[in-house]
């Protein structure tokens, strides 16, 4: 009669299974009703990158235009436009508005480096369509000028909606009436 015993055991297994689903039926739901509630793990979500402002100036990014992130990116998402900025003894910024990379500082065409001249971001383009969120750019940045945003709810109807200008985003994020800190 091992066959019969096996059958009875099998039938019992069906009842056990029904018991499991029966108990689950009365347990609370796990679904998060999206528009009414949100999931609670957005704090660790890693969205597209954003520029980080300098500690003393919420309008200027820390970026030193080393372009390491551009080189690191596997998908070629990042493009940076820059300009040269030289500080006058008085402290005013004097824009040289030279085409980036055209004239090398210190060459005969450029004005002699009377004072410290540095590069500044003119525009930081991110093509989020291509980004695979690997985080290599953030890891590479020597001055921690890049950070992940928490934008989980991005949507758009065309590719152009995901081509971001990060400098603009930084300026928009800055506190209202954000002036250069004295």
């Amino acid at each position, binding site marked *: 009669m091992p066959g019969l015993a096996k059958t009875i*055991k*099998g*039938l019992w*297994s*069906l009842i*056990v*299974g029904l*018991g*499991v*689903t029966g108990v*689950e039926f009365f347990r609370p739901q*796990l679904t998060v009703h999206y528009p009414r509630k949100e999931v609670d*793990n957005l704090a*660790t*979500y*890693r969205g597209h990158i954003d520029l980080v402002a300098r500690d003393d100036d919420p309008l200027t990014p820390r970026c030193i235009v080393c372009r*390491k992130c551009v*080189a*690191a*990116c*596997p998908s070629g998402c990042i493009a940076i436009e820059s300009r040269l900025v030289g500080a006058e003894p008085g402290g005013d910024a004097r824009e040289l508005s030279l085409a980036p990379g055209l004239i090398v500082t210190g060459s005969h065409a450029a004005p002699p480096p009377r004072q410290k001249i540095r590069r500044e971001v003119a525009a930081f383009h991110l093509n989020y369509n291509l980004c*695979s*969120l*690997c*985080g*290599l750019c953030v*890891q*590479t940045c020597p001055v921690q000028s890049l950070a*992940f945003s928490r934008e989980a709810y991005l949507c758009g109807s065309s590719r152009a909606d995901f081509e971001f200008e990060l400098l603009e985003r930084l300026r928009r994020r800055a506190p209202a009436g954000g002036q250069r800190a004295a």
Partner: protein
Amino acid sequence: MGFNWLSEPRGDYYTRHFVPTPEAEGDRLILNLGPQHPSTHGVLRVVVEMDGEYIMKAEPVLGYIHRMQEKMGEVKTWRQYLPNMGRVDYLHALAWNWAYVGAVEKLAGIEVPPRAEYIRVITCELNRISSHLLWWGAYLLDLGAFTPILYAFADRERIMDILQMVTGSRLTYCYYRFGGVSADLGEGFIQATRDFLKQFKTRIPMFHDLVTGNMILRGRCEQIGVLPLEMARRYGATGPVLRGSGLAYDTRRAEPYSVYPSLDFQVPVGVNGDAMDRYDVRLAEMTQSIAIIEQALEAMPDGPHINPDVHERLKPPAGEVYYAVEGGRGKIGVHLISDGGPRPYRVKLRSPSFCNLQLFAELAQGTLLADAVSILGSLDLVIPEIDR
């Protein structure tokens, strides 16, 4: 009418060149399972010749999502190739991460801090549990049980939440770096992992009650797709498919890497090599992974999570390297050839699903269509990994 599609010889290259079995008579049916079919879980296509409900011959057709992953390796720098690894097998992405990172580390002689090794073990095993959970649900979906996949996903979501804490993403992780991992584990991660393991241990008996003991499921799995060890060897099957046939070959034990030698865990094996054994092996592996994670959490030392000396523009010395890790589906191997330049000269990815799929043609021969679906599910194939 013009074009009479019924009399026109139709079908693509594969159907036209499909050779029916020699003794085939007129009333055989050539059926395309896929590329869009509910039980192939992706764009796999199997051309089958059927006599009634019996499969006379089955022939897998590959390449529907070939993405040239290997070729991409030759045009990207060593580091830029990292995110590709999460997309080969999206279910056990961290194992592929590990295989590539490990290969480059071996080639370039990069030292990995001990804490990073433990972090890798913990996250990779968590990922293995989530991969097996998804297989469990999807396999039962193939067998017509709809509910288990939702229960599996409830737990899988928690694993993804935990992994999101450190990796920032939920599926195609790109977390391991040459010489470590990209972010350190925080207290929150460790606590959440401990909580999850505690709760998950109570879930496994529930899974067994709902499914494993079920008479109908046993009828669908026992003695179905019996894979003799000799045949598994012949096809180069690895992972739970091979272990289900009774050989305790686990890369973590056979070719020890990282800190696995210092961890205490069993390698579950089956006896008959049927679908039920493969099922049992995978469920037992989840329990083993829990044990591994618990030990690793205890033993994890303090220290840096990444080796700071790795150069950004890494140029490993010219040479060849092969590095294998144990993924959810079997042995994941990465074979790299470097010419000393900034890019790999050649990348070869050994994907376990590719080898395991080849078994299907022979296993499915002479079975019922329903059994073939059960066999296909029990092999646990991830189609992007097959095509790469």
